Each structure stands twice: as C-alpha cells, then as structure tokens.
C-alpha cells in the first residue's frame, strides 16, 4: 500500500484548490453574491450555473479526465478524485452539465466514432450543447427494457414517436440522449437503439415540471412524428450499432451507479458540514450517529481508493457498483437526516439542508432503485439464483 500522493498529484491539488477558491468567489460576485444564485434546477438558476460551467471550461476544469483535445486535461483517475475532493471542499455548485459529462461522455468515449467524439465532446465540455437523459418513460421506470418510444426508419433519418419522462433538467437542455425501439417487432432488451436528439427538432415538445422540492428539475419530452435526420449531427445521430442500444446504455448505467457520478469528495464535504453543524448545536444524543456517518463517508473514500487501484490495474467496474450506489445514496439520506435532527424546529425552513434532504431522498430511487441494486448485488456478485 502507498496512501500518499505523488508530488505531481499534490501540485495538481494545489492548482485546483487555488483556481476553485478564486473562481468560485468571482462567480458568486458576478451574480451579486452566493445567496443571489438560484437552484440549478430552476430556469433562472440554470442560466446562472451555465456561467459557472463556462468558467470551468475556460480554466480547463470542465472534464479533467478527458484528453486535452476535447477540453480536458488528461488527468488520471487519481487526479480526478483529487479534483472532486477539492470541488466539494469549497462547496462549488452542482454540475448542471452532469448528465452529459458524467453519463453520456463515458459512453461516447466507449462507443462513439472519432467524428462523433470530435463533435460532441468539445461542445459538451464548453457547455454549448447541454445534454439530458431520455430513458425513463411513464411505463418504463425501474423496468427500462419496457421502453416503447419508437424510432422508425425513414428516408435519411428516423421518425420518433413516444414520451420520455422524469428527464432531469430536460426543460433547460439543448440535446437528449435516449433509447428508442428501432425494431418494431422486438421486445424487452432487443431492438433498441441509442439516439442523439437535438431538442429543437420539429415534433419534439418539452414540458418541465416540479420535483419533490418544487424546482422545475424534471421534464416530459414528447416525440410526435419528429424527424431526426441522420446528418443532424456530424458523425450521425446513432451511438453504437442500430439495435445495440441496450448494451450501449448499460455502459452508462455503469458510470451512473459506479465511480463517476457521485464521488467520495461530495459526501466527505457534507460530513464536514454536518460536523460543523453538530458543533454549533451540541446534541450529545446524536454524537455517536454523527461519528458513524463520518466513518461511512470515509469508508466510501477508502472503498473508492480500492476500486481505483483495481481499475488502474486493468480491472473493470463490475456489478459491485450496485452496492456502491446503495452505500452513497443511503449515506446521503442519513447525513441530511442528522442535520435536520440537529436543526430541530428550523429543519422545516427552506434552506440548503432541507433542500439537500429532499434531494437525498431521490438517491435510493434514481439510477435504478436500491431494490434493483440489491437484486443485482445478490445475483451478479453473490451469484444467488434468479426467480
């Protein structure tokens, strides 16, 4: 074991920290102070957050682990972890470009053609194209394979029909990556294709609606005989092979549940804020639970160090990403629950903790419910028999 950071990694951390502290302050100032910045899941807040995304891009921090050519800085997974720790340490804002950079991009790197990579990734990093995920449908939630949205082959493109829903920030994005049934005779996992859809395509209608916390963070996306031309984007609108959408999508769920979406830095930072809050309201009865919550955030960091060590050694993220997702999503609920208990009567007041609490409750639901994750862990990690 070597749990120390190399000199270059330490230098990377110092550079990131300095840049983040300076630019976060500047960004707050730009909008008249931190409190004047709305949630990124509101129309106003989204626009404000885009200016932050562009700052990140100008600084080369939008997607540190990407090749420089695409707007990254060729950072290692270790450096990515360091950046995430620093990012959350200063309480920098949630990434409104997250679904593109954290979910679509890994898939584009794995399945995209050079032409697609060259077109999609730089514009994504620059927050010029804003991507939302078009997977869930009214009748296809946990059961993603029940997708019924159709893409019918037509002269030089596809005709799209159907509805996607619970599309995060869909009302504010410019593009959607989604799964559509391209083989009308197919069922379940077969005959799906992974399409890249500009939301300004004629026949596409987006309706935003309120999440639990009331922010317009969700959207329905309706496709009514919308024509998606093959050349709507350089390199084409199909990601991976026609009919191979499921396998391509699974690569994305891997990153959603696994390493890239929710890094340990996020929860260590929340735990640190919880500890401050505990010091402010001494509540001895909660002391042991606060210590336990810190341990669980720290254990998540150690578990991730173990994972990255294995990935660096050539292993691939497997089904154990399922227990990873259960761990961080339940930890996030407990961290916020403890904060609310500390706040007592003030817990009900709109604020970062009550908002974070409501958001934490979505963790066990999105990216595959924790019930589904437990099935996966039991069947694919422990090898228990399917029904």
């Amino acid at each position, binding site marked *: 074991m070597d749990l120390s950071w190399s000199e270059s990694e330490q230098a990377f951390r110092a550079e990131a920290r300095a840049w983040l502290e300076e630019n976060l302050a500047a960004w707050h100032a730009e909008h008249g102070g931190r409190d004047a910045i709305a949630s990124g899941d509101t129309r106003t807040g989204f626009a404000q957050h885009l200016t932050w995304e562009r700052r990140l891009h100008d600084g080369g921090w939008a997607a540190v682990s990407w090749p420089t050519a695409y707007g990254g800085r060729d950072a290692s997974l270790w450096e990515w972890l360091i950046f995430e720790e620093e990012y959350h340490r200063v309480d920098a804002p949630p990434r409104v470009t997250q679904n593109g950079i954290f979910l679509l991009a890994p898939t584009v790197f794995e399945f995209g053609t050079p032409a697609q990579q060259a077109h999609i990734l730089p514009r994504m990093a620059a927050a010029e194209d804003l991507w939302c995920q078009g997977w869930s449908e009214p009748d296809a939630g946990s059961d993603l394979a029940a997708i019924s949205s159709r893409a019918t082959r037509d002269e030089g493109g596809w005709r799209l029909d159907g509805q996607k829903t619970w599309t995060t920030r869909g009302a504010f994005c410019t593009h959607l990556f989604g799964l559509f049934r391209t083989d009308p005779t197919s069922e379940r996992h077969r005959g799906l294709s992974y399409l890249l859809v500009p939301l300004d395509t004629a026949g596409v209608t987006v309706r935003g609606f309120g999440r639990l916390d009331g922010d317009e963070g969700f959207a329905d996306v309706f496709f009514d005989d919308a024509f998606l031309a093959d050349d709507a984007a350089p390199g084409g609108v199909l990601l991976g092979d026609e009919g191979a959408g499921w396998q391509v999508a699974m690569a994305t769920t891997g990153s959603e549940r696994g390493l890239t979406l929710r890094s340990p830095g996020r929860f260590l930072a929340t735990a640190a804020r919880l500890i401050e809050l505990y010091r402010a309201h001494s509540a001895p009865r909660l002391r042991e639970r606060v210590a336990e919550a810190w341990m669980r955030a720290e254990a998540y960091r150690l578990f991730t160090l173990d994972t990255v060590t294995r990935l660096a050694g050539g292993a691939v993220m497997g089904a154990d990403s399922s227990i990873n997702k259960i761990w961080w999503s339940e930890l996030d609920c407990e961290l916020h629950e403890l904060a609310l208990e500390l706040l007592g009567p003030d817990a*009900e*007041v709109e604020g970062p903790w009550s908002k974070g609490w409501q958001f934490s*409750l979505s963790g066990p639901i999105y990216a595959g419910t924790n019930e589904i994750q437990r099935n996966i862990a039991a069947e694919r990690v422990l090898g228990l028999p399917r029904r």
Partner: protein
Amino acid sequence: MFFGFDDDQLAFRDAARDLFEKECPPAVVRAAWEAPAGALDRTVWDRLAEMGVPATLVPEAGDGLGLDEQALVLVLEEAGRAALPHPLVETAAVAAPLVEAAPGPGSGPGPTGSPDPHGLGMVTTNLGGPHVPCAADADRLLLRDDVSGHLHLVDPAAAVLTPVATVDRARRAATVDWQPTPASLVTDDPAAVGAAFDRGAFGTAALLVGLAQRMLDLTVAYVGERRQFGAPVGSFQAVKHHLADALKELAFARPAVHRAAHSLATGADTRERDVSMAKAMASDAARFVGRQALQCHGAIGYTVEHDLHLHLKRSWALAAAWGDAAWHRERVARAIGI
C-alpha cells in the same frame, strides 16, 4: 376493560370523514400552498364549526359539545388523513378548553361570522414551536410568553408576523413578535400551560397517525396498479416487506395515541408519559411510513404533481413540532425512572 370507541364516538368520526372527503380534497390543500397570508379559504373550517368540532372539548354549558379527547382523537386522525391545513389541533385541542375555562376577549358570534358558540374563532399558537401555523389566517393567537411562561390570547393585529418559508407551504407559518399585557392573560398556572401543551402534542400525534394512514393507503393503491417487469410492483417481495413494516409501525403507534386520549380524558397520573409515548411513536411511524411510501412510489411520487408530497411534507413538519420523537422519548425515560 374496553379498549375501543362507543357508537357516538364512531359516528362523530364518520361525520368528520364525510365532511373532509367533501370539503378537503387535495385541491383545498394545494390552494392553501398558494393563498396569500391571511387569505386561507375557510369553507371547510366553517363546516367544522357548524359541526361544533372546534368546541368538542368545551362543556355543553359553554355551548360546546361537551365531549372529551376520546371523541376528538378520531376526528383529528381524519383531519390528518385529509392533510387539513387549518389549525384544528391548536383551536380544538389546545385553546378551546383553556379559553372556555378562563374566558378571554370577546364572545358571541365568531369574528368571521362562522358559527362559534364561544367567540373563539380560529386560533393558532406558538406552544408547538416558533413557527406558528396559519399565523396570519387565525382570529386569535394563543401565545406563551417565554419570559413568564404565561399564556396570553392576542389579537393578530396586535402582533408583528414574519412569514417563514417552510417546506410544507400549507403550514402558512410565521414567527410572532408581540407584547403580553394584563388584559391578554389567559393563564399563569404552569399546570394549565403544561396541560395545553400536552393536548397539542397529543392532537398532533393523532394528525400524524392519519397522515401516515393516508400515505400507506395511497401507496397500497399505487403499487397494486403500477406494473413493471410484467407484474404489479406490489407483487414484488421487497415492496411487500416495505409496506408490511409500514403497516406494523402504524398499527402499533395508533393504540398508543388512543391510550393518550383516554389518559387525558380521565386525567390519569400517567398522562404526560402517555402523551409523550404517543407523540414519539406517531412521529417515528409517520416518518417511517412516509419513507416507504416515497420509495415504493418511485419517481412518480417524487414530484409536486402527485398528491403524496402534500402529506409527506406535513408529516415531516408535524413530526418535529410539539417536541420531536427524541424530546418525548426523553420525557418517557424520566417517567419510567431512567
């Protein structure tokens, strides 16, 4: 020994249930989210007043119904099921018996013209916590003076209200800045103040039981319809076990609330302990049932378009108000001598 309710009590509950189903559908709760301070619609409240519900605990001599907490508890469960936004616990459980015992300002017809045998109108209070629900909507404020601990009945016009942005906007809460005067004094008897608090905690426990029951009912209905993987979601064992546990926690909290009603009605020596046990168990049960309900609804429940959040957010607020579960467990611990 008879641990149940008599026919009059059950009939009172049924009448209230019918009233709430007609007059307090989710649309009324949503309206309470949006209505400006002071403009809470009173239709359902006026119907309740006609039924005499706010004066349930007021003796018939005082033109009340002359009933006790054992009748009120079932009606409050129904108010919880409906997520009634009006301060029924504050008025009926907390203020009415007190003010009747020591008549405060006014009498005769209620200030809003709603039928109101003892002129109390709609009352709210700071006894349950600093965020006074429906503060700008109430006719009277029953306020505990932090310095003296005495209770005063104050005209809202005589107080400065600062709205509080709460997660459940139907709480319509505000903090209250005010000055006690001799004329506004209702009681300086610590026992009476303590009893008023206990009735509020008990009433809130009953609301929580009703809120939890409604969340469970909504979820059972939903998972029976919602199909995934070719089967109703409710046919999966994980969902069954979530909801079986929700049922269990609720089924064992309810008798504790009913017993508290009996202890208050009979002035049992153990009433403080019993109220605290009821509030602790009802608060935890409602939080637990709410978590299971949200998880079993999935993304569909995670929107403000679905009604679940109206009950969910109310249950969060009320679980923390009038002493949270930990505060009441502490009081139980003292009562059992540890």
